[in-house]
């Protein structure tokens, strides 16, 4: 092949390569910009609008004239009454409690799976995920059946039970992935140095598993914070969470600006939690690097 021809090939390959690049990148990007990014930005704008007379947002055109009046009313409303902040705090508390119970339940299971023979591991993992493949409502409904006769339905206990049940696999999987990577030689070394079972756990295994715990916690904490179906179906009137507030504004009260404000505040809370969890996981990972 002459060098001129080779150059031609390179150039044409470059061009069609670029074409291929845009052909696969552009359609999904465009779809998601329109149907995910844009709607997310519109929530911000909507939170600054007045509510409309018949629900929704105030119209942008009044008597043919464009109105772009923005207002902080919704934010004033939120911070003006402590009941909304109280519900936020309560939601955080429920999410925290759910996360802690998930850690306690997931740990022995993740450990057992990580220490099982390799061929049995996949089956044990599958058994954790399978109930998770069923519909959210069915899993919540199952607890209505279970807790009804125990007189626990419509209590905070029922809400937390449902939350733990629905989100447990999110904790087991990252924890298992972490525990599986531990080098057994570390525990043997600890034993040789005279550490008992308990000491070996707290001084070796637990610190090493912190990255797994943090990423699992983010996967549990965040969806719990925004959940509305579980408090609505299992909780009483006093067990409302952020998600219920948002749903109420959009579907019952029809105060969309306030609903958008609540969604935005929830988003900020979620981003903060995700950021903290990533930071904590990175920090503890660096710590474990130093150990190994």
């Amino acid at each position, binding site marked *: 092949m002459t060098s001129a021809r080779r150059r031609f*090939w390179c150039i044409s390959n470059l061009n*069609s390569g670029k074409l*291929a690049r845009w*052909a*696969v*990148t552009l*359609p*999904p*990007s465009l779809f*998601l910009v329109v*149907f*995910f990014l844009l*709607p*997310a930005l519109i*929530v911000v704008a*909507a939170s600054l609008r007045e509510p409309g007379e018949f629900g929704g947002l105030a119209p942008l055109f009044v008597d043919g004239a464009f109105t772009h009046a923005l207002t902080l009313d919704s934010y004033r409303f939120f911070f003006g009454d402590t009941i909304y902040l109280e519900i936020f705090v309560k939601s955080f508390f429920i999410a925290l409690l759910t996360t802690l*119970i998930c850690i*306690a*339940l*997931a*740990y*022995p299971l993740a*450990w*057992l799976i990580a*220490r099982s023979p390799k061929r049995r591991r996949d089956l044990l993992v599958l058994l954790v*995920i*399978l109930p*998770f493949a*069923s519909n959210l409502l*069915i899993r919540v*409904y*199952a*607890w209505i*059946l*279970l807790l009804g*006769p125990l007189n626990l339905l419509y209590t905070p206990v029922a809400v937390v039970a449902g939350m733990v049940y629905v989100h*447990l*696999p*999110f904790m087991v999987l990252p924890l298992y992935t972490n525990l599986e990577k531990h080098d*057994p030689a570390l525990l043997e070394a600890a*034993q040789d140095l005279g550490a*008992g*079972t*308990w*000491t*070996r*756990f707290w001084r070796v295994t637990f610190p090493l598993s912190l990255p797994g715990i943090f990423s699992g916690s983010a996967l549990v904490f*965040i*969806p719990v914070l*925004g959940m509305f*179906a579980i408090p609505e*179906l299992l909780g009483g009137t006093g067990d409302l969470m952020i*998600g219920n507030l*948002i*749903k109420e504004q*959009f579907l019952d009260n029809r105060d*969309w600006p306030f609903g*958008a404000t609540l*969604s935005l505040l929830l988003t900020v809370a*979620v981003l903060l939690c995700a950021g903290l969890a990533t930071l904590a996981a990175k920090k503890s990972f660096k710590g474990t690097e130093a150990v190994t």
Partner: protein
Amino acid sequence: MRVEPPPPPTPRPGGGGDGGSPPISGSTRLARPGGGARLWLWAASLGVYAFLYLPLAVVVLFSFNDSVLNAEWVGFTTRWYDRLLHDGDMLQAAANSLLIAMVSSSVATLLGAMAGIAMQRYRPRLLPFLALTPVAMPEILLGVSLLLFFRQVLDLTLGLTSILIAHVTFSIGFVAVIVRSRLAGMDESIFEAARDLGATPWATFRRITLPLILPALAAGFLMAFTLSIDDFVITFFVAGVGVVTLPLQIYSMIKVAVTPEVNAVSTLLMLLTLSVVILAARFAPDTLKAKA
């Protein structure tokens, strides 16, 4: 919070079984607390597995119970299934759900495959954020933002179209992850070889990439299918009043009264998603982890 004492680093058969009590002690050097800790771990894990499966088992069991009350076992019957078959609303909801799942998962597979290929090969900066954030954030936020977008910006009447768009939006990320992990496991040199032999990007895609990612496409399609047919939260916000899907129908039934018919439809839906998920796992073993 319960934290299980760890087992010894290597399984040692026939260790001193101390009746399952946790060996919390400063055990002497070279002690072998084999059986006790292992037994404890197994017991705790079995407890958690029971916690995962018992509620669903109750739903299935009571779907065959010959009593309107979900309280005690009276006798075996299939009449709740029989009633389902003659429930016009339920059949309509099932038909809607199947239609939405077929269409949305087809579109999501196409766009998700593009996104997966793009993410693996060209490392775009924005696309991973666009595809994966809808998966990671609380569902209610996507539901609310799409509701705002459809009603206030597009002025779209809520119904089939809005549900379809919403389902595609949250499914793209799952398909993309499955396709990308399939591509990541492949040797880059086969694509280079094709290019060196003068294949155009389209020919390389059709003759090499496509056959190789076909199992991932099948798995992604099936996963998107179960996500769509199971989705409640997002559908709840964007469905409007005209179109009812299976989860929405179940929700309104649970809200009104707990009837054994709910058990029957739940059992059938569980059976469907379970078999689809297991099928998906056969095509791509990592699929299940992608879902969680």
